[in-house]
């Protein structure tokens, strides 16, 4: 059994004498684990940095085995953004989300392509990531939810309202609700930022925070909750950064008077 394909490095854990267990995401074969010999040596560590795009080759005698994996760096995303807090937090968050939520060996081409292009753009233009990259991040998280079978229904109002006025999402059903029909339920609904429906818009820090609340709620409840796993801390740190940009005190750091989310947890931060 073997394959060779472009792959994104999602994580690498030191193992034994200088090796590493690495998790990579490919378009054709999905999420794969493998033993990278020399992966935690001084030379290997540079290749197996989270977020790097590599040309990977996986080999095993039987398909059930862990297999060994070798790689050559194609694009070293991480090294280019080590000095940029927000782009680095985005990279760490996206890779941790893909690593923790995707099932092994199941191709999700759209997720791979979206993540590859997003990481490439962030690493080539970190200032773009600070300025408008968060809108793409939220869109990718919603794409991930959709690929995992937990897609939101944002095409029309669940209560029969005007589809051009969609401003809210039900945290229970994941269906959009128009501003007009939200009525007294507004306080219990999740805000739907305009950039989610209109790809030409980039949003403001407040919109990004709302977007993270929206996707975070369903990541926590569905993508990770159904597998009894916590949402990765890296995402919580990204959300905290965006909250500070939007001058919002994240719920986890607020006093006792801070209103709780409808289901009693903070969907943006750690569960």
């Amino acid at each position, binding site marked *: 059994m073997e394959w060779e394909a472009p792959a994104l490095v999602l*994580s690498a*854990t030191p193992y*034994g*004498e*200088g090796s590493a267990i690495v998790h990579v995401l490919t378009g054709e074969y999905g999420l794969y684990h493998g033993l990278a010999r020399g992966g935690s040596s001084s*030379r290997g*560590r*540079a*290749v197996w*940095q*989270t*977020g*790097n795009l590599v040309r990977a080759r996986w080999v095993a005698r039987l398909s059930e085995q862990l297999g060994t994996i070798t790689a050559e*760096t194609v*694009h*070293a995303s*991480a*090294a*280019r953004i*080590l*000095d940029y*807090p927000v782009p*680095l*937090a985005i*990279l*760490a968050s996206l890779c*941790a989300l893909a*690593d923790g939520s995707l099932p092994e060996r199941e191709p999700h081409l759209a997720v791979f392509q979206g993540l590859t292009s997003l990481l490439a753009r962030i690493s080539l233009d970190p200032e773009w990531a600070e300025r408008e990259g968060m809108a793409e991040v939220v869109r990718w998280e919603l794409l991930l939810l959709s690929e995992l079978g937990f897609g939101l229904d944002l095409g029309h109002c669940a209560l029969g309202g005007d589809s051009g006025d969609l401003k809210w999402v039900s945290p229970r059903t994941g269906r959009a609700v128009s501003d007009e029909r939200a009525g007294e339920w507004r306080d219990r609904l999740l805000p739907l930022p305009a950039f989610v429906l209109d790809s030409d818009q980039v949003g403001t820090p407040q919109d990004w925070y709302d977007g993270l609340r929206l996707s975070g709620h369903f990541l926590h409840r569905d993508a990770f909750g159904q597998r009894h796993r916590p949402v*990765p*801390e*890296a995402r919580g*740190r990204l959300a905290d950064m965006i909250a500070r940009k939007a001058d919002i005190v994240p719920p986890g750091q607020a006093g006792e008077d801070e209103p709780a989310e409808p289901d009693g947890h903070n969907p943006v931060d750690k569960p």
Partner: protein
Amino acid sequence: MSGRGEIDRLVTLLGRLPGLGPRSARRAALALLRQPQARMLPLADALAQAAHAVRTCSHCGNLDTSDPCAICVDPSRDEGLVCVVENVGDLWALERAGVHRGVYQVLGGTLSALSGTGPDDLNVQPLLDRIAAGGVREVILALGATVEGATTMHWLHERLARFDVRISRVGQGVPVGGALDVLDDGTLAAAIMARRPA
């Protein structure tokens, strides 16, 4: 395996040490067993003594036989210059090089989604207390050039920003003795981005 229980246990315990796999552990065990008087008993004695005597410095997180450690109480050290490192191994590396004459703060890890290391797991409070008490002029963030190291550096930078101290970080790029054509893409990219006026 009758009669080999002690040897197997020795190999197993040695094999749990970082950098040693089963094969290296067997080689090490064999080397010890061949010269028990010259190698094995002195090693066992040193291990027992170290286990009882060595403790973690409550000031900086270093390992020493005294608390505070020898570095923290050394009057020739510049207490206004604090170097933050990930682990004691990094502190030892800087001491071997003799390039830092200040004091240290050992974090005990870096923020990592994979290993589950969060802010509460890092040994940061003694550093904040030391800065708040006054006398610290500069904090050098000497963390690894990895996603985890850089994430921790940014996180720490945010927490230190409220204090009136200079915050610096170690440089990145071409290693001494390194030729450009053998460097990996990431190191080259970091070196170009960290370039400075000649």
